[in-house]
């Protein structure tokens, strides 16, 4: 009975504590880790959205570019960060591709990260050097099958 009572009090205290953390959030500046260099699409996304999120949250949102290791370094840091909402990761499709490519990653994407939300999407475009003769994807395919000797 005593143990049960203790457990109840503990759960209640823990619940209040977590609630209080949420109510005082954010307690300091927020950092968004970007696994790519400044200027790239992921960095642009973080800066555009981060600046506006700062206005809502009432704290600065800092962008930190943590490049290298196919994004694994930035992802590892966020996966191991204090789970208090002050350290965020802005990542892209490669996060999912890495699950297949790096079986020994020091984190499990699905277990260690939770999504805040999808931010945007952008299509890819197949482009070629301007000296290519092909003017459509069909002509390009024909050229790829029989590239002229150069």
């Amino acid at each position: 009975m005593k143990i049960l009572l203790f457990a109840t009090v503990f759960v209640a205290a823990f619940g209040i504590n977590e609630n209080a953390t949420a109510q005082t959030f954010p307690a300091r500046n927020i950092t968004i880790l970007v696994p790519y260099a400044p200027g790239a699409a992921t960095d642009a996304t973080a800066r555009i959205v981060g600046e506006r999120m700062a206005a809502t949250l009432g704290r600065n949102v800092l962008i930190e570019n943590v490049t290298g290791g196919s994004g694994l370094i930035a992802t590892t840091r966020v996966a191991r960060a204090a789970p208090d909402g002050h350290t965020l990761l802005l990542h892209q499709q490669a996060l999912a591709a890495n699950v297949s490519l790096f079986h020994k990653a020091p984190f499990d994407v699905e277990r260690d990260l939770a999504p805040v939300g999808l931010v945007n999407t952008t299509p890819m475009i197949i482009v070629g050097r301007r000296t290519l003769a092909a003017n459509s994807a069909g002509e390009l395919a024909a050229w790829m099958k029989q590239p002229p000797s150069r």
Partner: protein
Amino acid sequence: VKFTNGGVGSLNHLCAALFAQAVGVEVDMIPYRGGAPAVADILAGHADLVCGSATLVSEQIIARNIKGYGISARERLASLPDIPTLAEQGFTSIDIELWHALFVPSATPRAIIDRLNQALRAALDDPKVICRQRSHRFPVRPAVPRGCRRPRARRNHPLGRDYPRQQDRSCATMIFNAPRCSVLRKMLAEP
């Protein structure tokens, strides 16, 4: 044929592999450290092709410094109305887009994730943010809850049979769990 990409496993790489597979040829895949240098070597004429993000290549297509052959998604871009989709040109197997998403450590309290989600949605709804994203060629599809959707599965992928299935599974799980996404959750629950 020299096809550059922004790194092994990047979407440039995936897109190039899908296109080469659709054409039915083997190409030389040349990885770079990021999409920007991969595009730079096409501009310089050192390699033939790259499947670059609209963000990186749009200006150069408009300036006619490179030739645009087709968009990897199902719809044309409003900012590049003259560039047809690859599907329109018969390459119907190609339907991919780059996505960006925000994450926190999974032990983060739900109330804090909701706060961040709310701030994210307020940002995505802001006309100034929409305008700035458009200038970077991001189709503005506010993610949560309205535009939240998962990347599609790919079968028989040249990077390995397991690649698309694994990728799709983890993308789906990550976006599946996004806060306030009950509509999407229902959609994905269907077999």
